[in-house]
């Protein structure tokens, strides 16, 4: 070999090597970029949810001294609840007007607004708040009572920065003078933002009152539905997995079941909703919008998930356990139920929790069986009500708010998502802890 053939050392890169190394670097970069994009999306989603949703946990309240005039609320003066119930919320509205006028005057705030326009900053549900309190305690009539009332969503939005003076130029619901008044009231501490418990415990409210809407009733609906799913899918799923993993002979029947489970796991969730509508509601005449029916539909949907993870858990128990049990004279059934199943329990529970979490976030099939957000207006009082009375679930409630195309409702939708995600994160953490704590490596 002469130098004429090999001019360069192996340690000096020639063009081809440079090209190949550059390609290598590029390829690696693509990989890193892909991971970064994925994780960035997660960050963006989290940031969006937190930044847009936390507002829903705060609400603007106004503190008013309301004189509960007997002449308006109980003309006969006999404090008969039945008679007082006849006074509708319209009967309470004048009291609010007077109250806000006196409050503003007492605070020494100058405004050109009439009392009617001043009262407009209150929520439409303020009068109802007053009425509920009075009907609960008729002895208040005739006294001047301090009330903490909701303001309307525009004022609330103004304090949260969602509504600005520029953005309300042609808005009939709120005027610049009202915002001036609110600024003055805020300075005096009469109007203030504070934690809003009724968002977590309350019920959905009509289109005009985003400030009064809460997710509590839908939460109960979700909870009732989850209980149905748990009660049905865990025993059925575990029984099915035990059969398939431990007993099933290899024949066409087992094959059919296996293929069915694999396919059901990938059927779009909305198809389960159609099934529920056609069979549970139209054929069996089960009540529409009931969490029970939602639970049945989602049971069918989660079963494949639970079966797949339960089978994996059963498979992980080593055959020596079974052999030992059989060798000591246990029957096949005894070896499974007394030995294999307890050892597989942590894995089964983990799979079940993940299946339930999936069901908790499901929306589309529940819309089809009538669990639409605006139905969630009455807090169920008994267990059978919680299962059978029309209700909604958290994701459907969020969807309902998203549809209303009002920034005040959007804020509530994001707030609802925070609550939903808190539940999901709790469930998934529980699953991880269970797996770490109890799972045995053989």
């Amino acid at each position, binding site marked *: 070999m002469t130098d004429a053939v090999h001019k360069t050392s192996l340690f000096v890169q020639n063009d081809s090597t440079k090209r*190949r*190394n550059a*390609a*290598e670097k590029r*390829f*690696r970069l*693509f*990989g890193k*970029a*892909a*991971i970064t*994009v*994925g*994780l960035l*999306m*997660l960050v963006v989603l989290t940031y*969006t949810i937190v930044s847009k949703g936390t507002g829903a946990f705060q609400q603007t309240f106004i503190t008013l001294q309301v004189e509960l005039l007997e002449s308006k609320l109980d003309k006969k003066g006999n404090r008969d609840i039945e008679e007082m119930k006849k006074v509708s919320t319209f009967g309470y509205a004048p009291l609010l007007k007077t109250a806000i006028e006196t409050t503003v005057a007492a605070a020494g705030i100058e405004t050109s607004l009439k009392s009617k326009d001043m009262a407009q900053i209150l929520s439409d549900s303020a009068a109802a708040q007053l009425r509920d309190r009075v009907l609960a305690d008729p002895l208040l009539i005739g006294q001047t009572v301090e009330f903490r009332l909701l303001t309307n969503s525009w004022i609330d939005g103004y304090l949260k920065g969602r509504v600005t003076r520029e953005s309300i130029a042609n808005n009939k619901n709120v005027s610049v003078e009202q915002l001036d008044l609110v600024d003055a009231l805020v300075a005096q501490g009469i109007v203030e933002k504070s934690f809003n418990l009724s968002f977590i415990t309350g019920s959905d409210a009509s289109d005009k009152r985003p400030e009064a809407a809460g997710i509590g009733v839908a939460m109960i609906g979700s909870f009732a539905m989850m209980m149905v799913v748990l009660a049905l899918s865990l025993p*059925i799923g575990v*029984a*099915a997995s035990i*059969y*398939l993993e431990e*007993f099933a002979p290899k024949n066409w029947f087992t094959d059919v*079941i296996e293929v*069915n*489970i694999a*396919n*059901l796991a*990938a*059927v*779009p969730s*909305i*198809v389960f*909703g*159609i*099934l529920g509508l*056609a*069979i549970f509601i139209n*054929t*069996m*005449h089960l009540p*529409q919008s009931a969490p029970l029916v939602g639970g049945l539909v989602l049971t069918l949907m989660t079963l494949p998930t639970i079966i797949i993870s339960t089978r994996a858990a059963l498979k992980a128990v080593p055959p020596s356990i079974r052999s030992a049990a059989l060798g000591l004279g246990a*029957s*096949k*059934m005894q070896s499974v139920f007394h030995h294999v199943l307890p050892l597989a329990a942590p894995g089964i529970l983990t799979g079940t929790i993940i299946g339930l*979490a999936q069901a908790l*976030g*499901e*929306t*589309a099939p529940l*819309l*089809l069986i009538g669990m*639409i957000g605006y139905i969630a207006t009455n807090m169920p009082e008994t267990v059978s009500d919680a299962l059978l009375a029309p209700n909604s679930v958290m994701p459907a409630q969020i*969807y309902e708010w*998203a549809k209303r195309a009002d920034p005040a409702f959007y804020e509530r939708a*994001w707030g609802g*998502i925070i609550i*939903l*995600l808190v539940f*999901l994160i709790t469930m998934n953490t529980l699953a991880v802890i269970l797996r770490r704590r109890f799972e045995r490596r053989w």
Partner: protein
Amino acid sequence: MSQSVLVLAIIAIAVVGFGLGRAKVVSKQERLHSLPRYYGTFVALCAGVPAFAVMLLWVLFAPIIMLQPIFDQITPDMIPEGGAASLIMADISRLSDGLITAQEAGLIDPAAIGAPVNLTVLGEMLGQAGVILGSEIQDSTLILALEMVERTQTSHTLLVVVTLATALIGLATGYMRVSPRFWARNMVERAYLGLLILAAGVAIFTTVGIVLSMLFETINFFGLHDWRDFFFGLNWAPSFQDDSELAILPLLWGTLYISIVALFVAVPIGLFAAIYLSEYASRSVRSFAKPLLEVLAGIPTIVYGLFALIVFGPFLKTWFGDGGFLGVNWMSDARSVATAGIVMGIMLIPFVSSLSDDIINAVPQALRDGSYGLGATQSETIKQVVLPAALPGIVGAILLAASRAIGETMIVVLGAGAIARFSANPLEALTTITTRIVSQLTGDGDFNSPETLVAFALGLTLFVITLGLNIIALMIVRKYREQYE
């Protein structure tokens, strides 16, 4: 006797059976074939299982048999303008429930109502019982409700009698068969196995239920609407006159277009992420990046839907919309193919990456070592050895992601818009099969109109498409897996 009391009664009978069966063999002082509790369990199962089966079947099917005649009696003139027969049916069942409650509370005196029902008297009694009659309840509805009360009560009496009789007969039969030489454990275990098989069969029932429920309504639909318009028509225009055009093609176009956009986002990102995680990443990077990426798959789709509608759509519009940064006016609405497609693509990243990751990891190390030995760089090895070896599995993963994209509902409901048309502009709104299913079935139209029934035909089409994709994907994955095992 309410149903919960009935359940308790059956359980009580079964418990008594357990005691009796056990006592019978223990008292004999002979060598037993099985442990005493198996004899007890045998008798308990004989008493309980058939009784519960009868009860379950009754509860499932009695309403169908019982309510159908009443449903059939609802005449078109009873249905108010814009209402549906099912609403009347709901009224009837609510009324009959109220009547039963009132009767049990002793607030309704059947004698006072009279044989030809005196509706005014009945109404007053119901009012006292706290059952509110809606203003629009007609006399005919009330009569049907009364008939329903009668049928419910007959059915209920029969249920109690038949179930308790089954339980007692079962108890007696079981007790007679039990003796010390009786193979009780084997019988009990056989019964358990039967229950296990039944549970496994639920998967089959579900599939059959899905297919049958959609098939029947689809046949109804094709009875009311021309099938040629559904399959070959070019317009989707439901109307409340009789001239709806309900064609699947524009919806199918929207569905496929959005899914393809989603895959264009998810496949490169997911695949590169999988390659990086399995071939390059250190253990620590992998252990934190992989679970975090998978979080994306665990977020409920409603969250992505809201993100598309409120954040991502408007964001796209600030670039492509009127007065946007690019100075073009290509986008008139925040909802568009790109909005829904890209957000859906983000959701699908972990589907592609997790599955591909598993498949790439399954490629034997020997193949890589051989390639390195020949002087190939790591990326050349991946491109020319690992990926070709993993290709069938990756195709399977992509098909599974595609089937998920086609069946995805909430993201497109919120992010894609509602306009059915053949448009190739990704910045315009289109609609999909799933969106239309939701809107046709959650509207307040009459259930038996073609506009509602079309949802079942759409659902069946969706089911067939996704099933086909899944089967092909599973076949490819399975075939590939056999190569290295």
